């Protein structure tokens, strides 16, 4: 009973923290927008008489002191209004959300590849460290870590698109609309377009996760309970998978979740190489064309992803291992 109360108070505290961080991110976004963007010029253009400028300035509330403007920005943010894109002339959040499915499906594809390969490969390298297979996997993972993600993409394109002509090199291909979600997963063309980008993105995460799984497994295999389980007559495979791997996965959830910033950066690079119409590609377009509202909205959105993931990881870690975080509660 006490443990549940402590757990709930931990979750409550964690949610408070998340809200505070989001507030800080919004204030930074407001400051950036305030310092870099001139909404009047964006709306009216350069050649507009001063009187008309003044009028619009008053109308938009830009002549008010900045605390009032900040309050207005935060009020809008709560309702999902973070400004209007100067390129697209539409609400920025809508523009970004329209690109979200593309990025999400790319990350999903890469994550599937990583999950499918990293766990077996990592476990194998831990339980059979001296085999040639394990050496080969670890050698390849050094190679994978050493090659920047955009170069992996370029090399894959060179090989499979330019030289062999097997797979498409850019774009998402045919997509199907499901409500608000544009998916490329339901058409053969869309899936074909996903292969190279997903492989590219996974190439940088896979070595990392193989090493993590291997390291965590090695740690677990050294524990007494593994020897006890073996002594009781459990088969090695059962000990590895049912006991050691289960415990090894816990730190992995935490470390994997904390990499979300890096993952977003790698996704952005992959999208650039493959001209994948996702959020990262959109962000770079916004940067090139100095669309300040779109840029700040992207920052807020990425910040939100970051905060939500970290909060979920903390809470999930707590549920998987009640020892974490309760001492201070």
């Amino acid at each position, binding site marked *: 009973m006490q443990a549940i109360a402590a757990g709930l108070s931990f979750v409550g505290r964690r949610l408070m923290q998340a809200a505070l961080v989001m507030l800080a991110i919004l204030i930074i976004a407001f400051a950036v927008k305030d310092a870099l963007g001139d909404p009047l010029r964006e709306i009216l253009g350069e050649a507009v008489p001063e009187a008309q400028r003044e009028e619009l300035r008053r109308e938009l509330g830009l002549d008010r002191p900045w605390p009032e403007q900040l309050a207005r920005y935060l009020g809008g943010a709560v309702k999902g209004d973070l400004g209007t894109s100067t390129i697209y002339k539409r609400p920025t959040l809508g523009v970004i959300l329209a690109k979200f499915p593309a990025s999400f499906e790319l990350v999903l594809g890469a994550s599937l590849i990583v999950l499918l390969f990293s766990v077996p490969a990592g476990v194998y390298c831990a339980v059979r460290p001296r085999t040639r297979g394990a050496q080969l996997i670890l050698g390849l993972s050094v190679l994978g870590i050493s090659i920047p993600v955009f170069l992996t993409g370029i090399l894959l394109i060179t090989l499979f698109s330019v030289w062999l002509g097997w797979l498409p090199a850019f774009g998402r291909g045919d997509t199907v609309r499901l409500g608000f979600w544009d998916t490329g997963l339901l058409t053969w063309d869309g899936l074909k377009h996903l292969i190279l980008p997903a492989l590219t993105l996974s190439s940088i995460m896979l070595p990392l996760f193989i090493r993590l799984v291997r390291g965590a497994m090695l740690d677990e295999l050294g524990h007494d309970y593994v020897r006890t389980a073996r002594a009781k007559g459990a088969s090695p495979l059962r000990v590895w998978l049912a006991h050691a791997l289960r415990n090894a996965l816990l730190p992995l959830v935490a470390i994997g979740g904390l990499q979300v910033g*890096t993952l977003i*950066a790698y996704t952005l690079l992959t999208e650039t190489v493959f001209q994948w119409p996702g959020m990262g590609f959109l962000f770079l377009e916004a940067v090139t064309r100095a669309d300040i509202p779109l*840029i700040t909205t992207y920052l807020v959105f990425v910040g939100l992803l970051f905060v939500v993931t970290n909060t979920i990881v903390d809470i999930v870690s707590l549920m998987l291992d009640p020892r974490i975080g309760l001492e201070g509660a």
Partner: protein
Amino acid sequence: MSAEMVRTAPRALLAFAAERPGAALAAIILGSIAFAAALAPLLAPQDPFDLTSFDLLDAGRPPAWLKGSDPRFLLGTDAQGRDLFSAILYGTRISLIVGVLAVAIQAALGVPLGLLATYRGGRVDTVVTRAADIQLSLSTLMMAIIVLALFRAGLGGESLSRYAVPLLVVVIGVAEWPYFARTARAAAQVEAVKDYVRAARALGGTGLGIVTRHILPNILSPLIVLATTQIAGAIMAEAALSFLGLGMPVTKPSLGTLIRSGYDLMFAGAWWVTVLPGLVLIAVLISVNVLGDALRDLLDPRRVAR
């Protein structure tokens, strides 16, 4: 370093090279690339920064071993007719300089902070450790992308081009100080309880003197190993940023910029403009990483014994 060590060092290095041929090969590759990059002004047949020294008529020549090549251009030319060999030499130079300087900043910030945390302990230690955690959770590449993107959107591509080198060095340098702080702190804490430190303290040494004169020299090994892998990371980060158009400009290309500017030509069949600088970048990164692994084994005897 004692005279004894200086005398036996070459033989120890040779023995190590025989034991780890991969590391020796990496050292030779990295050494030649760095040497060629350092001597770029002497070795390069052309000044790639001087727009008047190349001709659009020479654009898109393939490397010497392909059909249609021109003997003047060993590795072919890019879309502007720039000699790719010269561009790669100068580009490698910029990549290496940015990487090394960024890591210098990381170390200059991180090592003193880590030592300070050990030496002061208590609240200072807590603050440094927490700050390091927060900084690391922000992801270097994402932070660098955001900072440079805001710089570019706010002040324009012109200013970004002008200040690219210092900006990249500072952004990559500041983002990763925690690695040096953590390593310095962990190593210093191990040293701080050893007898020689106690002896120095008993002899009346002050905290700062003990840290700089006694502890720092004894924690250099892990810091050197860390610096090696950090340089690979910094070079990779610079290349990624330049590839995104947020780093070195086309007029002063690093390897990342060359890869980016050649990328458009790839579908026109001129794959070399992108792939060749890419291969040089990969060679540098793999060599540095392999050397880092070898250095770790060389400087940390416990790992070799395993």
